[in-house]
Structure formats: structure tokens, C-alpha cells
């Protein structure tokens, strides 16, 4: 198991090796359509996740006209806060009433793993960066609030998203035999796993970008991407 992450080991050489390995197989000029900035990741038997690729993500009230990335069914401002990713760090910029671990936030502050964000009166979101070697973060509602459309969690995908049985994965899929890693580069997602992965029933090459509407499957586990 990896040690608890620190800024020094996050980009440790192991990860560097994975990234290098991954870069080698990527085509110089990516083919295929790029993904939208956000989409829903449906994982059979596990849950549905609102995935955001952008480095700047807005949160606000879910209304028919909303343009925010994370629309929440709650009494919030149209644009209530912005989450900004800078390298491996996340900042929260309040536009409405925002509390971080119970303290009111007036200007941009840095988020740490397991911080509790409160938007408005009582919309509580847990900010987590579970994987020591990935800057991808997850937001979970701790009370009854939800996004529109419904999601079990919000994934802020940096370079990689790891799904699998381990507890430190971004999406914990206990019954899976193997991890699936989704790599994000220039709004394209590529998929890798130690076992053979299929895309819509055909063997998937790690150089083929995944599109919305497609289904990735591996020995009984299935992931689908849907445009929001």
C-alpha cells in the first residue's frame, strides 16, 4: 500500500512510471471526438457519478436555466461557489454563503482531504482525495441533498480516475476482480486495466478514446458514459 500522501510523494516515481508508460502508447495527435466537460458515469451495481473534467467548476442551485457545472437541488444562489484546481490543489471561492469545517469562508481557501464544505444553510459536502497518487477529488453529500440529475458523488477528474475494489480508489467497487483506470488528457478519456476490457462488446485498445454513450465492460463490471 502507498504511504499517506504528501506533496513530495504524490508524484512519486511509481506514478511517474505509470504516466510515462501511458504516454508512450498515446497517439501524438489524438483522434476521435473530445468528451464534454461533464458527463455522468454509470457503474452497474455501484452507482452513478457526475464527472467534471474542467479545472474550474461552479456550484449552484439547480434550475431549468442553470449553467453551473454542479447543480444542487437546494436553496442556493444561482452560482454559489467555484472550485478551482491548481496542480494538485483545490481552492474554494465563495460567491454565496460557504463554510469550511464550520468556519465562514470569505475569500479563496485551500481545501484539504476530508474537509467539510457547507453551502448555504445546510448543504454539506465532504471533499476527499482518496488516492495518494492522484489529484482527482470526490465530493459527497453527507445529508439528503443531491445534484440534478441525481448522482451518488461528484468526481473532479484530474489526470486519472481509478475504479476498483480497494478502499483508496475514487469509486470503490468491492465486487470487482480488478481495477479500471480512466486516464484524462485533453478532454479525452482512455481506459486501462490489467485484464482485457471491452468497449461496446469489442476489445478496447488503450489508445482509443471513450465516447459518451459507450459502455466499457470487464468480466461482469460495466461502466457507461452519458452526456448531461
Amino acid at each position, binding site marked *: 500500500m502507498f504511504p499517506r500522501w504528501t506533496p513530495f510523494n504524490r508524484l512519486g516515481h511509481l506514478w511517474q512510471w505509470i504516466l510515462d508508460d501511458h504516454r508512450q502508447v498515446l497517439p501524438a495527435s489524438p483522434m476521435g471526438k473530445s468528451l464534454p466537460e461533464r458527463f455522468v458515469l454509470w457503474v452497474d*451495481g*455501484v452507482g452513478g457519478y457526475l464527472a467534471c473534467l474542467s479545472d474550474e467548476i461552479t456550484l449552484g442551485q439547480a434550475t431549468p436555466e442553470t449553467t453551473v457545472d454542479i447543480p444542487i437541488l437546494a436553496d442556493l444562489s444561482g452560482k454559489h461557489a467555484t472550485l478551482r484546481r491548481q496542480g494538485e490543489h483545490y481552492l474554494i471561492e465563495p460567491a454565496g454563503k460557504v463554510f469550511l469545517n464550520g468556519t465562514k469562508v470569505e475569500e479563496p481557501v485551500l481545501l484539504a482531504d476530508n474537509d467539510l464544505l457547507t453551502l448555504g444553510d445546510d448543504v454539506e459536502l465532504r471533499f476527499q482525495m482518496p488516492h495518494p497518487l492522484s489529484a482527482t477529488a470526490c465530493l459527497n453529500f453527507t445529508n439528503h441533498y443531491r445534484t440534478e440529475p441525481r448522482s451518488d458523488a461528484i468526481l473532479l477528474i484530474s489526470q486519472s480516475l481509478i475504479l476498483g475494489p480497494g478502499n483508496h480508489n475514487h*469509486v*470503490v467497487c468491492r465486487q470487482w476482480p480488478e481495477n479500471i483506470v480512466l486516464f484524462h488528457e485533453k478532454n479525452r478519456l482512455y481506459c486501462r486495466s490489467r485484464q482485457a476490457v471491452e468497449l461496446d462488446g469489442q476489445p478496447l485498445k488503450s489508445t482509443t478514446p471513450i465516447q459518451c*454513450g459507450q459502455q466499457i465492460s470487464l468480466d461482469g463490471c460495466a461502466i*457507461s458514459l452519458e452526456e448531461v
Partner: protein
Amino acid sequence: MVDQHHDGPGDSVEKQPINFTHASGSSPLEGYTIKRGIGVGGFGEVYFAISDGGKEVAIKRIQRHLDIELRGMRQCLNIKHPNLLCLFDIRQDEQDTGWIVMEFISGKNLKELLEESPQGFPRDQAVAWIHGITSGVAHLHRHGIVHRDLKPANIFMDDGLVKVGDYGLSKFISCSRQGGQTESVGTFHYMAPEIGKGEYGKQVDVYALGIMFYEMLTGDVPFDGESSQEIIMKHLTDEPDLAGIDSRFKLAISKALEKDASKRFRDGTELLDALPKPDYTRLKDFTKPPEAPVPVAPDPRVRVSETTVPKSPASPGLTTWYDLARSELKSSPSRDRLTQLLGSLLKASLVSTILTLIMLPIGGIPIDGQPGTMSFFGWLLTSHISFCWAVLLLGHYWESRKGDETIRRLVMFGVGVGAGTLAFFTASFLNLSLVDFHRPSGSMQWPWMAANGIPTLGQYAINYGILFAVICWWKQADSFRPLRIDLLNAVACALVTWLLPIVPLPWSLMMAASISITVQASAPFLPEKDRKRYKIQIRRYH
């Protein structure tokens, strides 16, 4: 970390990865688009889907179905209860496959929550869970439906409300069980012994509820084993080990887990009466369910004719509204009861002070601040307050119980002797000469009175004892008395006291009347709207 959600009203969700028949984005059932698979139960896949109008639902695909079985489902379609998972519709697709459209619940089921708490839940939480589950099951039983497959994987929590799912599919379950298909070993943990004989009465559900309550309190099922045969054998022969169970729940669990179905609670309603009520103010994850048709003990006459189940002490035949209210009071949280008692004691002290100040001038003692007056006032006040407190304490203790009046009077006599002794010593402590005060009224001379008129300890003790025992004081401190303050009570008390040779006029009359008024003014009184609620409940069953 995003934890895995085996959510939705699936039934026992299989723990292996599954290849779902229908992929995300497909619409096998017209009007609904499948988003993802939730799980596979004993008889069909469950999907999370969104209707064309945007409603989020769970849809269950029933692979093998007979019309007769779907009819069984239809019976449940319109049953509503806050603790039952809502069924929306039963549909058939173009291939004639049956689909059940139902409420979608995200979050973990009880099975997963129990796996996370190997030591069981905290007691308050376990009580709230079992109360919710039993309320839902009792509602099914009242509609003549037996769940038959109660197990933690079928229980969900939605926004603080416990939800029972997968009811009405019992016919399928029994078929597949007899065929020995698709049932995992885990299911046998909740199976009542008589199921082997093919008996599926309401007591089957009562048994499963007993097992679940046991599991939530201890973290383990009472009967476990390596194989299904071993578990079934234990259900048939082993006695559950109740050593670690709180004594408040022992009776209910042991009765629910009786081997002989006829010795168990007859149905969910009867079990519900024997269970403690959850204190929702102390449970932050639970919400108090809205007022549902409140289950009360059914008509005792029916019970006698139908079975020979001995009456549980927790569910006596309730015939009047105040019996019902008393039985509910017994299970109300002790902290609230204590607060109520302390409040009434405080009120009694205030009212006593005011009434004593009024009594002094009437009794011919001017309020002049003289030391003699002050100590007499002090003595009168302490006697008054101690009398009222004794009545309030006993009334509080007795109001939630049924008891024999003679015994209560004897207890009152004992308490009176104590109060009299206290009054005597207070008087001697304050150096009060109460010769004038205690001049025997009339010409009656009682053996325990001193001939010279100077009161003795024995006189005080016995006088007070009689005064306590002669009047049913506790009835004036009862929450369920007909009027909050009935002045006729005060008059009656004064009259009775007048006949007793205890203290001279006018003190005897004034003391008795003012104590009666103080007790009535400070004892808790059940408001009219709650009385009405109990009366309606009782009427429903008679």
C-alpha cells in the same frame, strides 16, 4: 473515496459482479430509460431508471411469472405506509416480461450497514430500526399480507425513514425456495422453523423480525452455522442466547423467537406493542414517521377465540383511553418524564408559598414579620410543601401503572407517617409551641393524643398517616384526571379532614383544601387534543 452503493429497492443483492441484460441508455420497458443496473435478486434484475417525465425509479424485471403471481403483487400495489417502499406500477413489455416499477432509494441497505457495525448498532438506533420495520410489517399484516422474506437486505433507509421492501413477491420466493434455486445461505438465518413444513403465517415475519432485532443489538444472528442444514437445525432445536440482550428487549425477542409459532406474537401489531418506542429527539439520522394509522392492541375478544397465546404483559387488553395512554406513558423516555416531574415539584413549591401566605391572615395570624410568625410560617410552608411533594412523587410513579387501591393507601399511610415525623421535628427545631394549634377539636380524645394538649411524635405520625391514607390523593396528581383543577375535590378533601380529629379548625380545612388545589395546579395534565387522539384509537378497536 466514493463508497459503493448497493442501493435501491433490490432484494438480496448478489455479491458477485453481474452482467446485466440491459445496458445503460436502453429502454426495454416503454417510458423508462435504464441508467444502470442496481443488483440481482432471487428472481430478477433491478435497474435504476428515469421515466420520460424525469421521475427516478427502480424497475425490477420479473423473469418467470405467472398471472396468479402478478395478481399477488397487485394486491400490494396500493398499500401506503411511511415504512413501506412505495410500489408505483406493474407493467409488461413487448416480450411479455413483467416489470415492477417502484420507489428508488439511494444509500446502503440494512445488511450493508450491519456488516459495517460488527458489534451491532447503539441501542437507540436498533430500537428505531426495529420500530420502523415492525410498523411497516404490521401494516402489511393488517392488510392480510405476509412478507415471508424479511431480511436486512430488504430493509432500506430513505431520508431518515426506515423502509421495508420486496413485499408482495412472497409467492415467487416460496416457489424458488422449494425448488432450491438461487437462494443464498444467508437467507436461512431469518427463516422460521415452521417454513420447513410449508407454513407461512404472519408469525414467520414475527420470527424474522425477532432475529433482525437480535442481530442489530448484538451484531450477530442468533443461529449461525457453516451450512444451511446446520442453520435450519439450530432454528428447530437451539434456544437463542439472550445473555447479552438488554433486559428491556429480552421478553419481546424471546417471545418472537419461540419455536412454536402459536406462542409467538400473533402479528406485527402485537410485536409493535411489546417494543420500546424510539426517542427520535436523540437520533439525528432518523426522522419521526408521520402519523400513520396507529397500531393498537387489537380487540382482546378476537384474540381469545383465535389462539391460545398467553397474554403478554406488554400488551394487556386495553379497554379505555386512559389505559392506552398509561401504557404509552410507560414507554415514554424517562428523561422527559423526569423533567415533567421536576417542573411539577417546582410549581408546587410556588403555589404552596402563595397559598400559605393567604392562609395565615385567615387563620388569625397577622403577617407582621415577628420571629414567632416567621417560624410558624416556615413550619406551615415546609409541611405543606412536603405533603404536596409526597403526593406528586407517588402520583407520578403510579400514573403509568395499574395498582391495587388498598396497597396504595397503605403506602400512603407509610409516607404520611414519614411526613408527620418530619413536621414534628421541624416544629421542635423551630422551637414552636403548638399547644394552641393542636387543641383537640370537639370532645373527642384519641388514644395517641397527649392529654395535656402538647402534641407528641406519635400523634403527628399517626395523624399524618391517616390524612394521607383516607383520601386518594394520587388521583388528583394523575395526568389523566378529568379536569385540570376541580374545586369540588378541594371541598371534598376539606370535608373529610374536618371529620378527622387532627388539627383544629380552621387550619384543617384550609390545609386540606390548599394541598388539593396545589397538587392539582402543579401536576401534569394531558391536553385535550391528546385525549381525543387516544379516544379515537380506542374507538377504532371497539
